[in-house]
């Protein structure tokens, strides 16, 4: 079945450093979504990418979707303590009924 893998599992950074998490799917995806889960909270939608090679920005966050639509990345520039949390990618392959398959997430901690 479809698998979505994320690396790294954990990332510890000093405030102001950059951070990147990578997501890879075993199958071609129709789209990919990114969610953020704060400690003790629930996943909250950040963004969706649909087109091959698509790049989207949200302030200090940059999201990319690979040309083959099998991988994606999230890059945060100049991390802040408010960026702390776990970032999940979630993909939907072209043949699935509608359920998103989530990666295991990258847990980001930011030292002030």
């Amino acid at each position, binding site marked *: 079945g479809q698998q979505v893998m994320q690396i790294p599992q954990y990332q510890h950074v000093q405030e102001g450093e950059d951070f990147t998490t990578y997501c890879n799917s075993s199958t071609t995806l129709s*789209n990919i979504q990114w969610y953020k889960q704060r400690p003790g*909270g*629930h996943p909250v939608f950040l963004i969706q990418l649909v087109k091959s090679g698509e790049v989207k920005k949200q302030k200090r966050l940059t999201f990319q979707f690979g040309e083959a639509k099998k991988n994606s990345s999230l890059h945060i520039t100049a991390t802040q303590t408010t960026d702390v949390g776990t970032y999940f990618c979630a993909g939907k392959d072209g043949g699935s009924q*509608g359920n998103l398959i*989530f990666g*295991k997430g990258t847990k980001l901690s930011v030292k002030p």
Partner: protein
Amino acid sequence: GAGVSQSPRYKVAKRGQDVALRCDPISGHVSLFWYQQALGQGPEFLTYFQNEAQLDKSGLPSDRFFAERPEGSVSTLKIQRTQQEDSAVYLCASSRGTGSNEKLFFGSGTQLSVL
């Protein structure tokens, strides 16, 4: 409602006990999903409803797990004869439509602890 509401927030069950977890999606949302999230892991898909129809239950781990959404709004996830490995956070999510580009709105989850 303003968001997806789940109850109870916490549930402690003795092994072998039956539990029922409730999800109240955003009003008018057609699609409803149940996910299981173990500690330190990503949400794992359990089942999907489109209105009252359960279109995908491929993620339910055993026949002890049962979900329903009889009137196309509130959903209940029932776990019979709970076991320790059922301990996890159970997340419910809803989306407005049925298309592949719909974003999910999650509830706060029910944390189930089976002793």
